């Protein structure tokens, strides 16, 4: 077990969570909770892989993945925003729908493993020479990891320091107030659900074209979409905190794998190696960790009055009192 490798691997696998989490943060900031992240990621992973297999161009695959997931997110947007239905149920339904579609359309993709090109990996000159940090953050990572580094501060800046970002926050906090000032609440909500879909698609494509390339049905994402939904809360809808949470969670997952590997652990016989079913306990740990961090995080957020957008999950009905 090499700590640097675990951390570097955390950054790589965390990048997937990062995109999905920030995407969900955008949607939820506008007041719409979309529980279909997992399904949208699968759509992204599948379509990216399928298009790349057909065209041999992973960039085209990435682009199609983003639009495919963005498009399917609009099913949820229509049900939650226009039909004003329960967002939890609609999100779950989207999840089943999207998962089903990707499994059907992904038929036969698994066997294409060797003929599908991947997105490039590279080492950043100079920066990779920085001790420790260079190895963790800039050494032989996928290009999607580096894009993630740039994406996080941009997303933060957009939300907190720009006019559209201010409108986004207003729509999720107090849609009636935004509406009286001429902000188009419904349009913005559709738009940010779309953004959430695009980013979930990007996250899915990042898996299938780069981080763990290939199409393995529902195992491609293996529940990471659900982790992202939880991480949004841990991140308190903030991109930097989302990045921290995503990388940490990624590193934990890698650590868990590494603990199972060797036959001896700290000089003792490794119980997880000799009793493989114990590994289920290990695999549970990152999730337990998420729960603990969540509780701590939301207490802190309550104190500082950041946190849950006040109108999250509530349909906005024009002219209804008290909203």
């Amino acid at each position, binding site marked *: 077990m090499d700590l640097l490798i675990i951390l570097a691997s955390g950054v790589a696998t965390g990048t997937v969570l990062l995109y999905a989490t920030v995407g969900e943060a955008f949607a939820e900031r506008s007041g719409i909770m979309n529980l279909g992240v997992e399904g949208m990621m699968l759509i992204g992973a599948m379509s990216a892989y399928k298009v790349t297999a057909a065209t041999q161009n992973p960039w085209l695959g990435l682009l199609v993945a983003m639009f495919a997931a963005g498009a399917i997110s609009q099913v949820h947007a229509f049900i939650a925003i226009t039909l004003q239905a329960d967002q939890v149920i609609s999100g779950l339904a989207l999840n089943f729908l999207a998962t089903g579609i990707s499994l059907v359309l992904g038929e036969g993709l698994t066997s294409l493993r060797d003929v599908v090109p991947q997105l490039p990996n590279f080492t950043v000159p100079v920066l990779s020479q920085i001790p420790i940090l260079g190895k963790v953050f800039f050494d032989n990572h996928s290009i999607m990891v580096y894009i993630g580094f740039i994406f996080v501060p941009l997303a933060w800046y957009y939300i907190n*320091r*720009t*006019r*559209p970002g*201010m*409108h986004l*926050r*207003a729509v999720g*906090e*107090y849609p*009636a*107030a*935004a509406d*009286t*000032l*001429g*902000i188009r609440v419904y349009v913005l909500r559709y738009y940010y659900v779309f953004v959430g879909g695009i980013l979930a698609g990007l996250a899915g494509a990042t898996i299938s074209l780069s981080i763990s390339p290939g199409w393995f049905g529902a195992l491609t994402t293996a529940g990471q979409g659900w982790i992202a939904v939880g991480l949004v809360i841990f991140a308190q809808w903030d991109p930097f905190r989302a990045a921290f949470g995503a990388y940490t969670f990624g590193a934990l997952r890698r650590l868990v794998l590494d603990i199972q590997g060797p036959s001896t652990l700290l000089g003792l016989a490794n119980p997880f190696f000799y009793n493989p079913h114990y590994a289920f306990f290990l695999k549970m740990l990152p999730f337990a960790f998420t729960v603990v961090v969540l509780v701590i995080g939301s207490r802190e957020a309550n104190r500082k*009055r*950041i946190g849950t957008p*006040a109108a999250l999950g509530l349909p906005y009905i024009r002219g209804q009192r*008290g909203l």
Partner: protein
Amino acid sequence: MDQVNSTNGYKNVVSMRGIIKRFPGVLANDQVDFDLRQGEVHALLGENGAGKSTLMNVLAGLYRAEGGTTMVHGQVVNFGSPREAIEAGIGMVHQHFMLVPSQSVTENVLLGLDEPRFRMNLSRYNRKIEEIAQQYGLHVDPAARIWQLTVGEQQRVEILKMLYRGADVLIMDEPTAVLAPSEIEELFKTLRSMTVQGKSIVFISHKLHEVMDISDRVTVLQKGKVTSAGIETKDITRADLARLMVGRDVVFRVEKKAVDAGDVVLSVEDLKADNDKGLPALNGVSLEVRQGEIVGLAGVAGNGQSELAETLAGLRLALEGRITVNSQDATNKPVKLGIRQGISLIPADRTQVGTAPNLSVTDNVIMKNYDQEPIGQGWIVNSLEAIKYASELKEAYDIIVPNIDTSVRLLSGGNLQKVILAREISSEPRLMIAVQPTRGLDVGAIEGVQKLLLAQREAGAAILLISEELEELLSLSDRIYVIYEGEIMGEVVDGDIDKIGQMMTGTRLEQIEAQGVA
């Protein structure tokens, strides 16, 4: 071109003619005419439901009128949204503030505008907003977040929002309802300074003395019709306005029989409690209520009244101090024990706390005795007994409802309050805590509620009446405590309004008396 009224030479900035607006079952505005001159404060007076807010919501673009014409600066307009109204210079400050709590003052002011395009240069806009605030005497820190501000400051932000958008007509919907007397004074100063600078103001209110105080002219609405259009305030008396508003002579006094106060029922000593945000709301409250008396608790909203009521009823944790009911300790005891001890609460929030909105009248009235004979029989609720009980209460309290299976959310405010009162009074309380029992009710319903409270007093209950309506407190109470920032400022027996007013703004009774001597 601005319309000039040839007879008196005043410029009308707004003129509305024959406005009609219907809501399901109600004609809210029936052929209403309204004129607003430049530089005046024009009061729009009327009872709850008279159609004042509806008329102004039409002007501000929230509602579309079904008939009539509106002219602004001599041009016919038909606003489809508040934004169009603001662009024409008409801004409305609503009773419920439309502010995003997690955003700063500046962000709230800039919300929805095209400027800045993308990047927010907050420090630059902070300065700009500071300037406008200075110009009109609206003191508020542009960088502060809304949740950190007092209600008075939030109102200033709403006004700033409209001024920043270049509004020259400002509609204030019951702006004083949430303010302390000192804040009202400051608001009036601001309004006057705005009219001097050429702005025109519509002041919606149902409080006669404020209308007399601030307005240049007044238009009175009653049941959707104008009963008096644009009279000069100086030419009219308060009694005239009251008659125009209600449509009959108003008795400002209620019949109150003399009842000798008996034993102490409720005694509170040095009570401390936090509010929902974990901040201190009660800082050592001590008071007493005796059998057969109504004790008023006056104070501006948010000074610990609701926390006190909740703590007394056992709904909120008392951190320090002691509550005694009928000489039994009632501090932090389960609510059910309180109910058995004869504590009854009429909460301010009728729809969320006072009743379960989706349950029937029957279910709502048996909530306190569903487990008592004859309705509760072991594990079973005897529904025949429950229906019988509910029907009796429906008759006795004159609850107007098609049948007792109706969900209470379909009831009007007055009938809903009757359901609550029926439940609370029939439990024969020894201590009744009534929070804002008449708020939002029409005159007839108010009288009914007040009569029921007085009947309880005569029956020997101890009543703590928490209200923001001073007139109600004065007419019903035997004594009045005044609460300010979670502390009792003093007690008034003779109904001295001046003293109450001073105490409501944080002057202690001892200080007032010391000044009086000096």
